[in-house]
């Protein structure tokens, strides 16, 4: 299961690097960070997971999307096929290495935060509800700004 998630992370991160369409790249990054957050949970670091999701998936994404819309990223970009092939190759090599090496890595039990097994939902919704309100604010702000920027651009276009 962990391996699958790790693979997912790497796939999406690599997509983010390789895709030319910035919007798609940003979304790939977001997905990867969400998976990353889940991995944190599985490693008994629920707060790290929640923060990862809050900051990267929520906040930084909105920032990216705003930046892209501000500088007016092009929508019609052709994706070259070669890098993807290279990437798939690299990915296979990497996952092989991971599959062979990672399980053997020692885990320092003393550094693990003293939190028992909790559900991701519980931490996200119950322990840090106020963050959610903040996230709502972030998303609202992002949406409104995007709307206004797009509206302005449409007007200019006409």
């Amino acid at each position: 299961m962990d391996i699958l998630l790790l693979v997912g992370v790497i796939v999406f991160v690599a997509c983010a690097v390789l895709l030319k369409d910035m919007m798609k790249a940003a979304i790939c990054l977001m997905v990867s960070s969400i998976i990353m957050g889940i991995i944190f949970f599985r490693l008994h670091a629920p707060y790290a997971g929640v923060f990862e999701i809050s900051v990267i998936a929520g906040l930084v994404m909105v920032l990216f999307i705003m930046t892209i819309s501000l500088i007016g990223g092009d929508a019609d970009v052709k994706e070259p096929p070669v890098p993807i092939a290279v990437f798939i190759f690299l990915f296979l090599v990497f996952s092989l290495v991971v599959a062979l090496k990672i399980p053997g890595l020692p885990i320092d039990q003393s550094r693990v935060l003293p939190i028992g097994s909790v559900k991701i939902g519980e931490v996200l919704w119950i322990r840090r509800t106020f963050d959610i309100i903040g996230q709502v604010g972030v998303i609202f702000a992002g949406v409104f700004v995007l709307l206004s920027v797009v509206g302005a651009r449409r007007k200019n276009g006409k």
Partner: protein
Amino acid sequence: MFLFIFVAIPLIVASVMLIIERFSRDVLPDFLANLCFFLLLCASIMISCSWPGSGQYMHILKWFSTNLNIKVVLDGLSLLMIFTISIVSLSVGLFSINYMGKYGSKSLYYAILLVLVASMNGIVLTADLFTMYIFIEAAGIASYGLVSLGRTRYSTEGAFKYLVLSAIASSFILLGIAGVFVNTGTTDIRSISASGFSSKFFIILFLTGFSFKCGLVPFHTWMPDAYTAAPAVLPAVSSGIFVKVAGVYTVARIFFNALPFSAGVSFVMVYLGIISIVVGALLALGQSGLKRLLAYSSISQVGYIILGIGIGTPLGIIGGLLHMFNHAIFKSLLFLNAGAVEYTCGTDDSLKLGGLGKNMPFTSTTNVIGLLSAAGVPPLNGFWSKLIIVVALFKANMFLYGFIAILASVLTLGYLLLIQRRVFFGKIKECFENIVDVPFWMNLSMVGLGLVCVWVGVSFAPILIKWVLPAANVLMQGIRTSFCALGGIL
């Protein structure tokens, strides 16, 4: 529940805005947004009236008797901030009724402004560093949006610059929070304070990040570009309250309440303050654009606030906090005046303007009030806070800084009077002979802020006792020095 409305109501109204746009383009958004700001002002005044003067209100929100774990905390410092935010946001909201007409969809604008206000209230009302960070970012995004509303190449550039630079500062702050979390296992301010954690490395990260949010030299570079390009309401909100909430308030919270206030922090804050005061004032002297000049002036004035708080003595903190409140009022007023000039004449370059005083009596008069207040001329509000800061400097044996602070306020008077003379006095330029004064709501909001300036100046003692002293007490608890009475310090 009552405290939570400061965050909830603006967010709800903001979300409704998009639907409202379908029905009414102007009137309903105007009304709804200003009603919301007005309600918040009333609520903040109500809380102030029932405020016992010390301690804190803490609410943990419940939803059908289930613990929602939204912890809203309000103490003296938060109350001062909430009050400031409410006053400035209401006057900016009123100003926008007429002013924002030419900047695209009004309901979208109000939605962004409401999110900004909600986020600032969130920053102030939370007791958790990470939540604070999220709200700072939310408010930041809203301000980038407001900058980009200017709809010119420059405003996009300004917004972009602001965004990129701000992202760097935010990453410092986030790194700092992460470090604190790793070392203490919590992000709750009280728990951090109880753990007694202190690390120079994270203090540096916080200082850098929040100095950027304050706009202190040399982290100020986003401010002039962003303010110049934006519609005047953004600088009024941003310089008036956002900088205070995201910069000064957080600095005070973190260094006085969360981490121990050390001599090093005090030293760095005093130096940053002094450098900002001098460089900001000198740069302002060389500008001709109203908004750009005021942006540099803001840098200089925020320097005073950080200087006052950075001294770390009771008197210094009181002076700094009072100046924060005063600066919020008079700087918003000055930016709104600049907006009014831009609204009627289409430019804010003082070299192209002249003699507007006759046709725009309200703007001219309130501008005089604002500038005298900014320069610290008695009996206006800026005088008292600057006086307290200078006295605190002298009392702390920082005579040189005290003199620099006084000299810089002379410089302030100099450049602001220069602007007043160029723009409002003298002979009117031919091309502006037929201009008329700005519409009612703009005048109303400017006159309102001007009256607050005069009122605070004439009766500063009640303000000091009601709002500033409890706030200063909160900070002083951090230094664990006992002090309370007004009689002891004056």
